[in-house]
């Protein structure tokens, strides 16, 4: 058996990784058996992907609602183009902000900066957002708080649309 993975094995491994490591002592050994490779080759490939910067993070991914983090708001703001980077970077570092993204405005959608704030309950999250806006002097900018009221689906992304992981 060679120490490198074929393109097909790489795709299979990618799909397996998207679904997560098995909860067994040697998870990469389990993957290796599923794609007919070796534990060492699988680990090397995953490390390569990591070094290429393909992973935003690597670890335990929780479903926050089941852990009592029930309130989640998407704060959307219309920030002047000249200072959206500055504000984005400041808000991205602010406590309680899980994600901070710039996105395009669209007809009927004037907002270009998006922050996700999570917390145990709605009041706490709302108070936190109001404080955040005040701290950054953004109360006067057009903004809106979009609380989520129901999760229809919550899972990781599937980038590889081939169902090759299920061999």
């Amino acid at each position, binding site marked *: 058996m060679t120490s490198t993975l074929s393109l097909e094995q790489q795709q299979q491994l990618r799909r397996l*990784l998207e*679904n*997560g490591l098995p*909860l*067994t*002592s040697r*998870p*990469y*050994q389990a993957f290796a058996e599923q794609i007919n490779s070796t*534990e060492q080759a699988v*680990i090397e490939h*995953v*490390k390569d*992907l990591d070094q290429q910067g*393909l992973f*935003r*993070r*690597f*670890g*335990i*991914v*929780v*479903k*926050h609602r*089941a*852990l*009592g983090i029930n309130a989640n708001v*998407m704060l959307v703001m219309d920030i002047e183009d000249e200072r959206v*980077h500055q504000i*984005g*970077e400041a*808000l*991205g*570092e602010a406590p309680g902000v*899980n994600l*901070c*993204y*710039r*996105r395009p405005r*669209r007809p*009927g*959608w004037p907002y270009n900066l*998006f922050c996700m704030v999570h917390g*145990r309950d709605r009041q706490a999250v709302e108070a936190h957002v109001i404080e955040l806006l005040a701290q950054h002097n953004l109360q006067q900018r057009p903004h*809106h708080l*979009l*609380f*989520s*009221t*129901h*999760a*229809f*689906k*919550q*899972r*990781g*992304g*599937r*980038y590889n*649309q081939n169902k090759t992981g299920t061999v």
Partner: protein
Amino acid sequence: MDELCLRMLDRFQHDLPICAQPYQAMADELGCTEEEILQRLEQLNQRKALSRVGPVFEHSLAGASTLVALAVPAERIEEVAAQINAFDEVNHNYLREHDWNLWFVLTGPNREHLDQTLVKIEQLTGLKPLDLPMLTAYQINLGFALGKDSQVPT
């Protein structure tokens, strides 16, 4: 949830070593046994609190993704949400308080695939999607703070 589980979650939502025995590596760092780690993960899984252990892919490098919103009439929400959920490209499908009330993330191998999926969504639902791809990420998400200050129910 016990103290070990909280410490495990606070430490290992990021930077889990990529090695033959990652659960043993977690145990070594937290001063417990591999068995105790696997038990805690199984418990989280049984509570439906564990999505998975592994990588969160960087959208921009792993393929294409976009945030999409639909303005769904209230009486059609369940129907349209189910139609949207049926797409393999969809994750994180949420109902939110706004005229644009259904929000979900589309992921796929490339932008062209997403464009095709957006067309299919519009044809299927009769609703015009708002397509909001990420232009800049200002923060690297390291997971949720679950330590003592966050008072997670046990």
